[in-house]
């Protein structure tokens, strides 16, 4: 029934009447045989899901994330010496992989929106769905869920490998004496459920939130390189700037609120402070929400 051209169009073929000035009699307008239904967020979500899974950049960026998180994680696990797993929580060897792997997620977050600007696809997208807030919400949700699931999966895999390889060993050297670690309770390397949740879901949430922040920055800047560079600055600058600041308090504050410290806290090896990471994660969520809201406002009022 979705036929085109319309069967037996009841309109005179050939050129329409000319020479009647501006007052043409309105011919009966074309009506499509396809019924019209109202669209909503669900349709936008389906559309964005198709988009994210049909470009190679998704495969590349998330592939790189997986490669770093798992590859580097395994490299660490299988090369640590005895004194190292004695002195650190055993899941924390996933940190270097996450530190690099987050860059893949950030890049994808930026590309989800800036690639539409650079290719002109954004015009097609917003013509198909003029509710710009809905488009942004759908993009954010699809991206967030995809990266949360995949980075949590990657981190879980690394945590599993770490536990299998490093767990259950006798603590021989000076023990890691922080409270709440399995090590102390059993005298063997072990993990608590809290540690596991933070090293898997916690890190996954961190990466997804950071990627979402990157997406919002991408909306604001509309430029791939600019947005990625900005995000690198956001992730690394507080930590690096801290190195050059003589004032202890300022340096510690900068380092405490730097993104890598969130990963550190979640793995129980913070650069500064003794928190478990949930507080900083909440702060990241707040920053991301505010930036997304700013992005939505700008997207709404700006010409494409």
């Amino acid at each position, binding site marked *: 029934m*979705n036929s*085109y*051209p*319309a069967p037996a*169009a*009841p*309109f*005179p*073929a*050939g*050129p*329409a009447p*000319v*020479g*009647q*000035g*501006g007052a*043409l009699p*309105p*011919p*009966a*307008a*074309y*009506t*499509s*045989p*396809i019924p*019209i*239904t*109202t*669209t909503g967020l669900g*349709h*936008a979500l*389906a*559309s*964005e899901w*198709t*988009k994210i899974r*049909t*470009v*190679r*950049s998704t495969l590349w960026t998330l592939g790189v994330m997986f490669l770093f998180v798992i590859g580097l994680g395994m490299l660490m696990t299988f090369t640590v010496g005895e004194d190292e797993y004695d002195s650190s929580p055993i899941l924390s060897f996933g940190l270097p992989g996450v530190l690099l792997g987050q860059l893949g997620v950030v890049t994808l977050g930026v590309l989800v929106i800036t*690639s*539409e600007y650079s*290719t*002109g*696809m*954004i*015009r*097609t*997208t*917003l*013509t*198909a*769905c*003029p*509710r710009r807030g809905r488009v942004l919400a759908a993009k954010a949700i699809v991206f967030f869920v995809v990266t949360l699931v995949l980075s949590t999966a990657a981190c879980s895999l690394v945590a599993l490998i770490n536990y299998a390889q490093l767990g259950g060993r006798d603590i021989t050297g000076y023990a890691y004496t922080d409270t709440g670690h399995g090590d102390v309770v059993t005298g063997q390397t072990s993990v608590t459920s809290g540690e596991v949740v933070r090293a898997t879901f916690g890190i996954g949430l961190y990466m997804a939130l950071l990627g979402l922040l990157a997406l919002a920055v991408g909306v604001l800047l509309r430029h791939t390189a600019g947005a990625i560079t900005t995000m690198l600055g956001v992730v690394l600058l507080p930590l690096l700037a801290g190195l050059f600041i003589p004032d202890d308090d300022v340096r510690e504050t900068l380092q405490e609120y730097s993104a890598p410290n969130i990963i550190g806290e979640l793995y129980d090896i913070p650069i500064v402070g003794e928190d478990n990471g949930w507080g900083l994660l909440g702060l990241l969520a707040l920053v991301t929400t505010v930036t997304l809201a700013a992005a939505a406002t700008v997207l709404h*009022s700006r*010409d*494409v």
Partner: protein
Amino acid sequence: MIELEHLTKRYGEKLAVDGLTFTVRPGVVTGFLGPNGSGKSTTMRMMLGLDKPSSGEVRIDGKRYIDLKEPLRYIGGLLEARGVHPGRSAHNHLLCLAQSNEISPSRVNEVLDIVGLTSVAHKRSKGFSLGMGQRLGIAGALLGDPQVLLFDEPVNGLDPEGIHWIRNLIRDLADQGRTVFVSSHLMSEMALTADHLIVIGQGRLLADTTMADFITHNAHSFVRIRTPQPERLIAVLSAEGIGWDRGDEGSFEVSDVPAEQLGELAARHRLVLHELSPQRASLEEAFMRMTATSVEYHAHTPSENNGTASAGAPGAPPGAEPGSGPGSSGWGAHRKRGEGR
């Protein structure tokens, strides 16, 4: 039906679109003409809800674009700049558009078939030629089987076969009762396709009329006569009170008198004629005349010379500033024939 009401777009100090009011009607192909930089693309972007008007509004079938529940079902647009992610296959590109408007996935295959891209449906559009890219854009416009279609420079960069195909498609769409709005700077193409014309210059409406009326009112038709006996011809014409101008290569140009009458006149006076040909004014010429004064990047075109009998070369742009803009040489500068009278 597309209705524009006092549509205005201002970029800082500059008025890109200045109070446009017109209606694009169903069942005919409406051509949208204007020199480069006259605000055509801006107008079309505002029609599609991409740019916000500074004032005034556009309504598609009586609704604002933002209020269209399933916009692709009402209006299909092909913008001049490509709007396709090159890394996505043609099929997936159309699929994500279809999903956002609850259009059945089977319709994707239908439109791919209509535009002839079925064989490359699962190839990434990165490798598409200009013509294939254009066809994919048109497939996107047709996806929702909309009543209103908007094509910005649809034949740009196409080969003759592609141009022919688009021309027929556009005519067919209008014959089915759809509203078809086409911009192009190819006058010959527009003359073949459009029934009605909207002409703008510097963002202002210059004409909203039928193709035939536009040409009759804005360009002059004349009869060209060549003869080996020019003095006698002049004498005969003068005796009859018929005005004439000098044309190219020693020819004469007579307006207002039909060729038949001139032929009979020549026969009565036993004049030898080597040519007696009615010259129908072209859309291009009519367009040049109308927009000569409103071309934005002016190369001092000879519009002020109109009406003088100089058959010289007023078209040469003396002292045209270097880089006088894209519009100039193409539009104003080539009016060689002196329009006397």
